[in-house]
């Protein structure tokens, strides 16, 4: 069977679910960041697959995926800076212990 758009969409759905699973089970804040990266990559695969199969002349999907990469880099930088700050103050990065502003 020839590889079509459906294959790529299903693969990206699978990757997205794996990322969601990791996001929900992990207690370590670093692993949560990594799971978010997996989910963003799943979305990027969708964009590039659509650009290839639906819109091969004006490749809007590829441009959009590049923007997503830039935003993901920004998100990781801010997230890691926040985590290091929290670690410096509390010497702990268990996500369940970040409850000081919970009411």
């Amino acid at each position, binding site marked *: *069977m*020839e*590889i079509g758009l*459906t294959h*790529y969409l*299903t693969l990206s*759905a*699978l*990757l*997205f*679910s*794996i990322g*969601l*699973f*990791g996001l*929900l*089970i*992990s*207690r*370590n804040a*670093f*692993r949560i*960041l*990594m799971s978010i*990266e*997996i989910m963003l*990559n799943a979305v*990027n*695969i969708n964009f*590039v697959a659509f650009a*290839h*199969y*639906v819109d*091969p*002349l*004006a*490749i*809007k999907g*590829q*441009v959009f*995926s*590049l*923007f997503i*990469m*830039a935003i*993901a*880099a*920004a998100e*990781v*930088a*801010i997230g*890691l*800076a*926040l*985590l*290091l700050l929290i*670690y*410096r103050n509390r010497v702990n*990065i268990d996500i*369940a212990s970040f409850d000081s502003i919970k009411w």
Partner: protein
Amino acid sequence: MEFLESLSSIPFYVLSVITVLCSLGMILNPNLVRAGFTLIGAFASISGFYFLLSANFVAVSQVLIYAVGIVLVIVFAVMLCSLKDEASKLQEYVFASRSKTVFALVISALTFSLLSFVIQSQDWETITKLTGATKYASVIDMVDEKYTSQIGYLMLNKYLLPFELISILLLVVLVGVIILSKKNISK
């Protein structure tokens, strides 16, 4: 001929297996640094998909930004927060609790089944025909080499505003990260 066609789908399946195994390994590996390095495998094989989809520039950016840049930064941050006292209870760190794991499994399985149901229920051949992709299918190889220059053209013409906004965002992030990670902000 049929054999050759089935042969051309091998790279896709090999890359899929590598990607899925690496992302699962990232989630389940109790050692955080090893999990970060497993992520490199996932990102590199995802860039292989971009090569298969003839998106060469996106594939190279994927390797440069994700597989090297982001993973490196995450692994360095993990090493900065080396949690020595927690090495003994690493296993507990991965799986929150049994009920929560089951809950997460159910939620992600539901998401996957919902997404794949929606994907299967669409008639993609008609959609690609309507938008004229198959009409240009023979042209794709010719366009292929021009994708990179076309991306540059689009970014500086049609998508100039988002492009400049991204540069402002990166500047703001740079300043924000420096301020956040500085000691003694109040002084």
